[in-house]
Protein backbone atom coordinates (compact mmCIF):
# COMPACT_ATOMS: atom_id res chain seq x y z
CA UNK A 1 0.00 0.00 0.00
CA UNK A 2 3.10 2.26 0.29
CA UNK A 3 3.41 3.22 -3.33
CA UNK A 4 -0.09 4.35 -4.23
CA UNK A 5 -0.22 6.36 -1.01
CA UNK A 6 2.98 8.18 -1.96
CA UNK A 7 1.44 8.96 -5.36
CA UNK A 8 -1.67 10.24 -3.69
CA UNK A 9 0.44 12.39 -1.35
CA UNK A 10 2.23 13.97 -4.27
CA UNK A 11 -1.04 14.69 -6.00
CA UNK A 12 -2.38 16.17 -2.81
CA UNK A 13 0.65 18.38 -2.43
CA UNK A 14 0.39 19.57 -5.98
CA UNK A 15 -3.29 20.20 -5.48
CA UNK A 16 -2.77 22.19 -2.29
CA UNK A 17 0.01 24.17 -3.96
CA UNK A 18 -2.26 24.99 -6.88
CA UNK A 19 -5.08 26.06 -4.60
CA UNK A 20 -2.75 28.22 -2.51
CA UNK A 21 -1.25 29.82 -5.61
CA UNK A 22 -4.71 30.47 -6.91
CA UNK A 23 -5.87 32.10 -3.69
CA UNK A 24 -2.79 34.27 -3.39
CA UNK A 25 -3.00 35.35 -7.01
CA UNK A 26 -6.72 35.91 -6.70
CA UNK A 27 -6.45 38.07 -3.61
CA UNK A 28 -3.59 40.02 -5.18
CA UNK A 29 -5.82 40.72 -8.17
CA UNK A 30 -8.42 42.11 -5.80
CA UNK A 31 -5.92 44.28 -3.94
CA UNK A 32 -3.94 45.73 -6.86
CA UNK A 33 -6.09 48.16 -8.82
CA UNK A 34 -6.21 46.94 -12.40
CA UNK A 35 -5.44 49.41 -15.16
CA UNK A 36 -8.01 49.41 -17.94
CA UNK A 37 -7.12 46.73 -20.44
CA UNK A 38 -5.40 44.37 -18.05
CA UNK A 39 -8.66 42.48 -17.63
CA UNK A 40 -8.63 41.29 -21.22
CA UNK A 41 -5.25 39.69 -21.82
CA UNK A 42 -6.73 36.88 -23.91
CA UNK A 43 -7.68 39.15 -26.82
CA UNK A 44 -4.81 40.29 -29.00
CA UNK A 45 -4.34 44.03 -29.41
CA UNK A 46 -5.72 45.41 -32.69
CA UNK A 47 -4.75 49.08 -32.47
CA UNK A 48 -1.03 49.24 -31.69
CA UNK A 49 0.38 51.46 -28.98
CA UNK A 50 -2.54 51.57 -26.55
CA UNK A 51 -2.12 48.71 -24.11
CA UNK A 52 0.31 49.08 -21.27
CA UNK A 53 0.58 52.83 -21.79
CA UNK A 54 -1.07 55.64 -19.95
CA UNK A 55 -4.05 56.98 -21.88
CA UNK A 56 -3.08 60.48 -22.93
CA UNK A 57 -6.47 62.23 -22.94
CA UNK A 58 -5.34 65.40 -24.63
CA UNK A 59 -3.25 63.94 -27.44
CA UNK A 60 -5.47 61.29 -28.96
CA UNK A 61 -6.98 61.66 -32.41
CA UNK A 62 -9.02 58.98 -34.03
CA UNK A 63 -10.75 58.86 -37.37
CA UNK A 64 -13.28 56.55 -38.92
CA UNK A 65 -13.46 55.94 -42.65
CA UNK A 66 -16.28 54.10 -44.38
CA UNK A 67 -15.49 52.91 -47.88
CA UNK A 68 -18.86 52.63 -49.54
CA UNK A 69 -17.35 51.10 -52.68
CA UNK A 70 -16.59 48.03 -50.54
CA UNK A 71 -19.82 47.79 -48.55
CA UNK A 72 -21.92 44.80 -49.57
CA UNK A 73 -24.78 45.47 -47.15
CA UNK A 74 -24.45 42.21 -45.24
CA UNK A 75 -25.40 43.86 -41.97
CA UNK A 76 -22.66 42.17 -39.90
CA UNK A 77 -21.95 45.52 -38.32
CA UNK A 78 -25.58 46.02 -37.30
CA UNK A 79 -25.83 42.55 -35.78
CA UNK A 80 -22.56 42.85 -33.86
CA UNK A 81 -23.40 46.33 -32.66
CA UNK A 82 -26.79 45.26 -31.32
CA UNK A 83 -25.24 42.32 -29.44
CA UNK A 84 -22.32 44.34 -28.07
CA UNK A 85 -24.63 46.90 -26.46
CA UNK A 86 -27.91 44.95 -26.14
CA UNK A 87 -29.70 47.63 -28.13
CA UNK A 88 -33.48 47.08 -28.00
CA UNK A 89 -35.19 46.08 -31.24
CA UNK A 90 -36.20 49.00 -33.41
CA UNK A 91 -33.35 51.25 -32.25
CA UNK A 92 -29.99 51.55 -33.99
CA UNK A 93 -26.59 52.80 -33.00
CA UNK A 94 -25.39 52.00 -36.50
CA UNK A 95 -27.40 51.11 -39.58
CA UNK A 96 -26.98 50.52 -43.30
CA UNK A 97 -28.97 52.42 -45.91
CA UNK A 98 -29.57 51.29 -49.47
CA UNK A 99 -29.59 53.93 -52.20
CA UNK A 100 -31.11 53.41 -55.63
CA UNK A 101 -30.93 55.80 -58.54
CA UNK A 102 -33.00 55.46 -61.67
CA UNK A 103 -32.30 56.90 -65.12
CA UNK A 104 -34.15 60.10 -64.24
CA UNK A 105 -31.78 60.57 -61.30
CA UNK A 106 -34.53 60.01 -58.77
CA UNK A 107 -33.10 58.68 -55.54
CA UNK A 108 -34.80 56.00 -53.48
CA UNK A 109 -33.51 55.20 -50.03
CA UNK A 110 -34.58 52.38 -47.75
CA UNK A 111 -33.22 50.65 -44.69
CA UNK A 112 -35.48 47.79 -43.59
CA UNK A 113 -34.84 47.17 -39.90
CA UNK A 114 -31.69 49.27 -40.22
CA UNK A 115 -30.03 46.55 -42.28
CA UNK A 116 -30.05 44.27 -39.24
CA UNK A 117 -31.58 41.38 -41.19
CA UNK A 118 -29.39 42.07 -44.20
CA UNK A 119 -30.73 42.82 -47.65
CA UNK A 120 -32.26 39.58 -48.86
CA UNK A 121 -34.56 40.88 -51.58
CA UNK A 122 -34.53 43.73 -54.08
CA UNK A 123 -36.92 46.58 -53.45
CA UNK A 124 -40.40 45.45 -54.41
CA UNK A 125 -42.28 48.69 -53.85
CA UNK A 126 -40.75 50.64 -56.73
CA UNK A 127 -40.78 49.70 -60.39
CA UNK A 128 -37.93 51.60 -62.02
CA UNK A 129 -34.86 50.64 -63.97
CA UNK A 130 -31.93 50.90 -61.60
CA UNK A 131 -28.97 52.89 -62.88
CA UNK A 132 -26.85 52.98 -59.75
CA UNK A 133 -27.24 51.38 -56.37
CA UNK A 134 -25.04 51.22 -53.32
CA UNK A 135 -25.04 50.81 -49.55
CA UNK A 136 -24.17 53.51 -47.05
CA UNK A 137 -23.42 52.53 -43.46
CA UNK A 138 -24.24 55.23 -40.94
CA UNK A 139 -23.05 55.79 -37.40
CA UNK A 140 -22.07 58.62 -35.07
CA UNK A 141 -19.98 61.23 -36.90
CA UNK A 142 -18.03 62.23 -33.77
CA UNK A 143 -18.20 65.89 -34.73
CA UNK A 144 -15.50 68.25 -33.64
CA UNK A 145 -18.31 70.79 -33.07
CA UNK A 146 -21.06 68.49 -31.80
CA UNK A 147 -24.56 70.04 -31.76
CA UNK A 148 -25.82 67.35 -29.37
CA UNK A 149 -23.30 68.42 -26.73
CA UNK A 150 -24.20 72.05 -27.16
CA UNK A 151 -27.90 71.52 -26.49
CA UNK A 152 -27.63 69.14 -23.53
CA UNK A 153 -29.01 71.04 -20.52
CA UNK A 154 -27.48 68.78 -17.84
CA UNK A 155 -24.03 68.00 -19.21
CA UNK A 156 -24.94 64.38 -19.87
CA UNK A 157 -23.61 64.41 -23.42
CA UNK A 158 -20.06 65.59 -23.63
CA UNK A 159 -16.98 65.59 -25.79
CA UNK A 160 -14.03 63.94 -24.12
CA UNK A 161 -10.56 65.47 -24.52
CA UNK A 162 -9.68 62.49 -26.73
CA UNK A 163 -12.45 63.44 -29.16
CA UNK A 164 -15.25 60.98 -28.40
CA UNK A 165 -18.81 62.11 -27.78
CA UNK A 166 -20.13 60.03 -24.90
CA UNK A 167 -23.31 59.90 -22.83
CA UNK A 168 -23.39 59.91 -19.05
CA UNK A 169 -26.37 57.68 -18.34
CA UNK A 170 -26.42 58.77 -14.70
CA UNK A 171 -26.94 62.41 -15.69
CA UNK A 172 -29.20 62.08 -18.71
CA UNK A 173 -32.78 63.13 -18.02
CA UNK A 174 -34.10 61.94 -21.37
CA UNK A 175 -35.26 65.32 -22.63
CA UNK A 176 -34.28 64.30 -26.19
CA UNK A 177 -32.94 67.73 -27.20
CA UNK A 178 -29.83 65.98 -28.55
CA UNK A 179 -31.96 63.70 -30.70
CA UNK A 180 -33.44 66.76 -32.40
CA UNK A 181 -30.09 68.50 -32.63
CA UNK A 182 -28.14 65.67 -34.26
CA UNK A 183 -28.08 66.31 -38.02
CA UNK A 184 -27.17 62.68 -38.67
CA UNK A 185 -30.04 61.10 -36.69
CA UNK A 186 -27.59 58.94 -34.85
CA UNK A 187 -29.19 59.27 -31.45
CA UNK A 188 -32.17 57.49 -29.95
CA UNK A 189 -33.98 57.41 -26.64
CA UNK A 190 -33.60 54.00 -25.06
CA UNK A 191 -37.15 52.93 -24.11
CA UNK A 192 -35.98 51.06 -21.01
CA UNK A 193 -33.29 53.27 -19.50
CA UNK A 194 -34.75 56.57 -20.81
CA UNK A 195 -31.23 57.58 -21.78
CA UNK A 196 -30.46 59.29 -25.09
CA UNK A 197 -28.00 56.69 -26.33
CA UNK A 198 -25.65 56.89 -29.24
CA UNK A 199 -22.80 55.13 -30.99
CA UNK A 200 -19.55 55.65 -29.07
CA UNK A 201 -17.18 54.21 -31.68
CA UNK A 202 -16.87 51.46 -29.07
CA UNK A 203 -14.95 53.64 -26.64
CA UNK A 204 -14.57 50.74 -24.19
CA UNK A 205 -12.92 48.61 -26.87
CA UNK A 206 -10.68 51.37 -28.21
CA UNK A 207 -9.39 52.14 -24.72
CA UNK A 208 -8.30 48.51 -24.51
CA UNK A 209 -6.60 48.51 -27.90
CA UNK A 210 -9.42 46.79 -29.77
CA UNK A 211 -11.16 47.99 -32.90
CA UNK A 212 -14.80 49.10 -32.72
CA UNK A 213 -16.93 46.01 -33.12
CA UNK A 214 -18.40 47.05 -36.49
CA UNK A 215 -14.88 47.49 -37.87
CA UNK A 216 -13.82 44.17 -36.42
CA UNK A 217 -16.66 42.18 -38.01
CA UNK A 218 -16.76 43.90 -41.41
CA UNK A 219 -15.90 41.14 -43.91
CA UNK A 220 -14.84 43.47 -46.74
CA UNK A 221 -12.95 45.99 -44.60
CA UNK A 222 -15.33 48.72 -45.70
CA UNK A 223 -15.11 50.23 -42.23
CA UNK A 224 -11.72 51.46 -41.15
CA UNK A 225 -10.74 52.94 -37.83
CA UNK A 226 -7.43 54.17 -36.55
CA UNK A 227 -5.22 56.58 -34.75
CA UNK A 228 -4.26 59.69 -36.69
CA UNK A 229 -1.17 60.13 -34.52
CA UNK A 230 0.13 56.82 -35.84
CA UNK A 231 1.60 57.44 -39.28
CA UNK A 232 1.42 53.75 -40.14
CA UNK A 233 -2.31 53.45 -39.55
CA UNK A 234 -4.57 52.89 -42.53
CA UNK A 235 -6.74 55.91 -41.81
CA UNK A 236 -3.71 58.20 -41.59
CA UNK A 237 -2.52 56.99 -44.98
CA UNK A 238 -5.97 57.29 -46.55
CA UNK A 239 -6.45 60.81 -45.21
CA UNK A 240 -3.05 61.94 -46.44
CA UNK A 241 -3.28 60.39 -49.89
CA UNK A 242 -5.21 61.68 -52.87
CA UNK A 243 -8.38 59.87 -51.97
CA UNK A 244 -11.89 61.13 -52.52
CA UNK A 245 -13.01 61.48 -48.93
CA UNK A 246 -16.12 63.38 -47.96
CA UNK A 247 -18.01 64.09 -44.79
CA UNK A 248 -21.77 64.17 -44.41
CA UNK A 249 -23.54 67.55 -44.25
CA UNK A 250 -20.40 69.63 -44.36
CA UNK A 251 -22.45 72.82 -44.38
CA UNK A 252 -23.77 72.12 -40.90
CA UNK A 253 -20.34 73.11 -39.62
CA UNK A 254 -20.02 70.07 -37.41
CA UNK A 255 -16.62 68.94 -38.73
CA UNK A 256 -17.16 65.19 -38.47
CA UNK A 257 -14.30 62.78 -37.80
CA UNK A 258 -16.18 60.20 -39.87
CA UNK A 259 -15.17 60.22 -43.52
CA UNK A 260 -16.70 58.43 -46.45
CA UNK A 261 -14.69 57.13 -49.36
CA UNK A 262 -16.37 57.09 -52.76
CA UNK A 263 -19.49 58.82 -51.50
CA UNK A 264 -22.02 60.12 -54.02
CA UNK A 265 -23.53 63.54 -53.69
CA UNK A 266 -27.02 62.12 -53.27
CA UNK A 267 -26.18 60.78 -49.83
CA UNK A 268 -27.35 62.92 -46.97
Amino acid at each position, binding site marked *: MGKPDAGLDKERRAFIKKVLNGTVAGSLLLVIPMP*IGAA*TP*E*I*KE*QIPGIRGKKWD*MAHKRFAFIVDI*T*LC*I*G*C*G*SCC*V*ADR*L*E*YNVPAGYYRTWVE*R*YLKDFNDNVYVDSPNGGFD*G*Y*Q*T*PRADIDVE*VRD*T*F*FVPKLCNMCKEPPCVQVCPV*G*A*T*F*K*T*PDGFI*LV*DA*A*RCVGCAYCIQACPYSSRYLDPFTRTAEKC*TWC*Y*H*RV*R*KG*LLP*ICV*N*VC*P*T*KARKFGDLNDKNSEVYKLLHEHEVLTVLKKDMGTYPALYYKGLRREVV
Partner: protein
Amino acid sequence: MKSTYNSHIKRIVLGLVVFAVLGFVGKIVMTPKSFGKYGPYRADAIDEEANREIRHGTNASCLSCHPNEANMHLTGLHKTISCEFCHGPYADHIKDGKVYGKLPVKTKEEIKVLCLRCHNRAIQARPGEVIKTVIMPEHLEKQKVKVSHTCDQCHQVHAPLKHINRAKEIVGAKEKIDG
Protein backbone atom coordinates in the same frame (compact mmCIF):
# COMPACT_ATOMS: atom_id res chain seq x y z
CA MET B 1 -36.82 92.34 16.50
CA LYS B 2 -37.96 95.83 17.50
CA SER B 3 -38.51 98.01 14.50
CA THR B 4 -35.78 100.60 14.13
CA TYR B 5 -34.95 103.00 11.31
CA ASN B 6 -32.59 100.45 9.61
CA SER B 7 -34.22 97.14 10.50
CA HIS B 8 -35.52 96.64 6.95
CA ILE B 9 -31.95 96.83 5.59
CA LYS B 10 -30.77 94.31 8.17
CA ARG B 11 -33.55 91.95 7.13
CA ILE B 12 -32.62 92.23 3.45
CA VAL B 13 -28.90 91.70 4.12
CA LEU B 14 -29.65 88.73 6.37
CA GLY B 15 -31.90 87.27 3.69
CA LEU B 16 -29.20 87.69 1.05
CA VAL B 17 -26.57 86.06 3.27
CA VAL B 18 -28.85 83.10 4.00
CA PHE B 19 -29.58 82.77 0.28
CA ALA B 20 -25.88 82.89 -0.62
CA VAL B 21 -24.91 80.33 2.02
CA LEU B 22 -27.73 77.98 1.02
CA GLY B 23 -26.76 78.34 -2.63
CA PHE B 24 -23.10 77.75 -1.89
CA VAL B 25 -23.77 74.66 0.24
CA GLY B 26 -26.33 73.41 -2.26
CA LYS B 27 -23.85 73.73 -5.09
CA ILE B 28 -21.21 71.78 -3.19
CA VAL B 29 -23.67 69.07 -2.16
CA MET B 30 -25.44 68.70 -5.49
CA THR B 31 -22.55 68.98 -7.96
CA PRO B 32 -21.43 65.45 -8.80
CA LYS B 33 -17.87 64.47 -7.94
CA SER B 34 -15.38 65.03 -10.78
CA PHE B 35 -17.77 67.47 -12.50
CA GLY B 36 -15.79 70.09 -14.36
CA LYS B 37 -12.46 68.29 -14.47
CA TYR B 38 -12.31 68.48 -18.27
CA GLY B 39 -15.45 70.49 -18.95
CA PRO B 40 -19.07 70.89 -17.84
CA TYR B 41 -19.65 67.17 -17.34
CA ARG B 42 -18.82 64.34 -14.96
CA ALA B 43 -15.26 63.23 -15.81
CA ASP B 44 -15.83 59.86 -14.10
CA ALA B 45 -18.35 59.01 -16.82
CA ILE B 46 -15.42 58.61 -19.23
CA ASP B 47 -13.93 55.81 -17.17
CA GLU B 48 -17.34 54.27 -16.61
CA GLU B 49 -17.83 54.07 -20.35
CA ALA B 50 -14.29 52.76 -20.81
CA ASN B 51 -15.00 49.97 -18.34
CA ARG B 52 -18.12 48.75 -20.11
CA GLU B 53 -18.17 45.00 -20.63
CA ILE B 54 -16.52 43.82 -23.86
CA ARG B 55 -18.96 41.35 -25.38
CA HIS B 56 -17.22 40.55 -28.62
CA GLY B 57 -13.69 39.21 -28.94
CA THR B 58 -11.79 38.89 -32.16
CA ASN B 59 -11.37 35.95 -34.49
CA ALA B 60 -8.00 35.28 -32.84
CA SER B 61 -9.69 34.86 -29.46
CA CYS B 62 -12.14 32.29 -30.88
CA LEU B 63 -9.64 30.37 -32.97
CA SER B 64 -7.12 30.05 -30.14
CA CYS B 65 -9.37 27.36 -28.63
CA HIS B 66 -10.77 25.93 -31.87
CA PRO B 67 -7.74 24.71 -33.88
CA ASN B 68 -9.75 22.66 -36.37
CA GLU B 69 -11.91 25.61 -37.31
CA ALA B 70 -8.79 27.79 -37.36
CA ASN B 71 -7.15 25.52 -39.93
CA MET B 72 -10.15 25.78 -42.20
CA HIS B 73 -11.15 29.35 -41.57
CA LEU B 74 -7.74 30.96 -41.99
CA THR B 75 -6.94 29.18 -45.25
CA GLY B 76 -10.29 29.72 -46.94
CA LEU B 77 -11.91 32.62 -48.70
CA HIS B 78 -14.01 33.34 -45.63
CA LYS B 79 -11.05 34.28 -43.46
CA THR B 80 -12.21 37.88 -43.15
CA ILE B 81 -15.62 36.89 -41.79
CA SER B 82 -16.05 37.29 -38.08
CA CYS B 83 -16.78 34.08 -36.16
CA GLU B 84 -19.12 36.01 -33.91
CA PHE B 85 -21.31 37.25 -36.74
CA CYS B 86 -22.67 33.73 -37.36
CA HIS B 87 -22.19 32.19 -33.91
CA GLY B 88 -22.86 35.04 -31.50
CA PRO B 89 -20.75 37.13 -29.15
CA TYR B 90 -17.76 35.79 -27.21
CA ALA B 91 -19.23 36.91 -23.88
CA ASP B 92 -22.17 34.51 -24.30
CA HIS B 93 -19.68 31.65 -24.52
CA ILE B 94 -16.75 32.47 -22.21
CA LYS B 95 -16.91 34.13 -18.80
CA ASP B 96 -13.78 34.61 -16.66
CA GLY B 97 -11.82 32.27 -18.93
CA LYS B 98 -14.32 29.42 -18.59
CA VAL B 99 -16.95 28.07 -20.94
CA TYR B 100 -20.20 29.58 -19.79
CA GLY B 101 -22.74 28.99 -22.51
CA LYS B 102 -23.10 27.19 -25.79
CA LEU B 103 -23.23 29.25 -28.94
CA PRO B 104 -25.69 28.20 -31.61
CA VAL B 105 -24.47 26.49 -34.76
CA LYS B 106 -26.54 27.48 -37.74
CA THR B 107 -28.12 24.71 -39.82
CA LYS B 108 -29.72 24.25 -43.24
CA GLU B 109 -32.10 27.08 -44.07
CA GLU B 110 -30.48 29.39 -41.53
CA ILE B 111 -27.19 28.85 -43.33
CA LYS B 112 -28.78 29.70 -46.66
CA VAL B 113 -30.16 32.94 -45.24
CA LEU B 114 -26.74 33.80 -43.83
CA CYS B 115 -24.97 33.07 -47.14
CA LEU B 116 -27.40 35.16 -49.13
CA ARG B 117 -26.91 38.15 -46.85
CA CYS B 118 -23.74 38.69 -48.86
CA HIS B 119 -23.85 36.48 -51.95
CA ASN B 120 -27.24 37.34 -53.43
CA ARG B 121 -26.84 38.92 -56.86
CA ALA B 122 -30.48 40.03 -56.91
CA ILE B 123 -29.28 42.92 -54.74
CA GLN B 124 -27.44 44.83 -57.43
CA ALA B 125 -25.57 47.04 -55.02
CA ARG B 126 -22.89 44.41 -54.47
CA PRO B 127 -19.80 45.12 -56.55
CA GLY B 128 -18.52 42.03 -58.34
CA GLU B 129 -14.89 42.80 -57.61
CA VAL B 130 -15.61 42.80 -53.88
CA ILE B 131 -17.74 39.68 -53.61
CA LYS B 132 -18.78 36.70 -55.72
CA THR B 133 -22.54 36.65 -56.05
CA VAL B 134 -25.11 34.16 -57.33
CA ILE B 135 -28.75 34.15 -58.32
CA MET B 136 -30.18 31.45 -56.18
CA PRO B 137 -32.25 28.82 -57.96
CA GLU B 138 -30.22 29.49 -61.13
CA HIS B 139 -26.90 28.66 -59.46
CA LEU B 140 -28.24 25.30 -58.25
CA GLU B 141 -29.63 24.45 -61.69
CA LYS B 142 -26.33 25.36 -63.35
CA GLN B 143 -24.40 23.14 -60.95
CA LYS B 144 -26.90 20.34 -61.71
CA VAL B 145 -27.99 19.75 -58.13
CA LYS B 146 -31.45 19.64 -56.59
CA VAL B 147 -33.07 23.02 -56.04
CA SER B 148 -33.72 21.97 -52.44
CA HIS B 149 -29.97 21.87 -51.71
CA THR B 150 -28.62 24.18 -49.05
CA CYS B 151 -25.32 25.98 -49.58
CA ASP B 152 -23.38 23.96 -47.02
CA GLN B 153 -23.99 20.72 -48.89
CA CYS B 154 -21.27 21.74 -51.36
CA HIS B 155 -19.52 24.65 -49.67
CA GLN B 156 -17.76 24.15 -46.36
CA VAL B 157 -19.01 27.25 -44.58
CA HIS B 158 -15.61 28.11 -43.08
CA ALA B 159 -13.67 27.56 -46.31
CA PRO B 160 -16.22 27.63 -49.12
CA LEU B 161 -14.09 26.04 -51.86
CA LYS B 162 -12.32 23.47 -49.70
CA HIS B 163 -14.46 20.45 -50.55
CA ILE B 164 -15.01 21.54 -54.11
CA ASN B 165 -11.31 21.86 -54.86
CA ARG B 166 -10.59 18.58 -53.04
CA ALA B 167 -13.24 16.80 -55.12
CA LYS B 168 -11.71 18.20 -58.27
CA GLU B 169 -8.29 16.99 -57.20
CA ILE B 170 -9.67 13.49 -56.67
CA VAL B 171 -11.36 13.25 -60.04
CA GLY B 172 -8.29 14.81 -61.64
CA ALA B 173 -9.98 17.83 -63.03
CA LYS B 174 -7.48 20.36 -64.29
CA GLU B 175 -9.29 23.59 -63.60
CA LYS B 176 -9.31 24.68 -60.00
CA ILE B 177 -11.44 27.47 -58.72
CA ASP B 178 -9.44 30.17 -57.07
CA GLY B 179 -12.06 32.60 -56.04
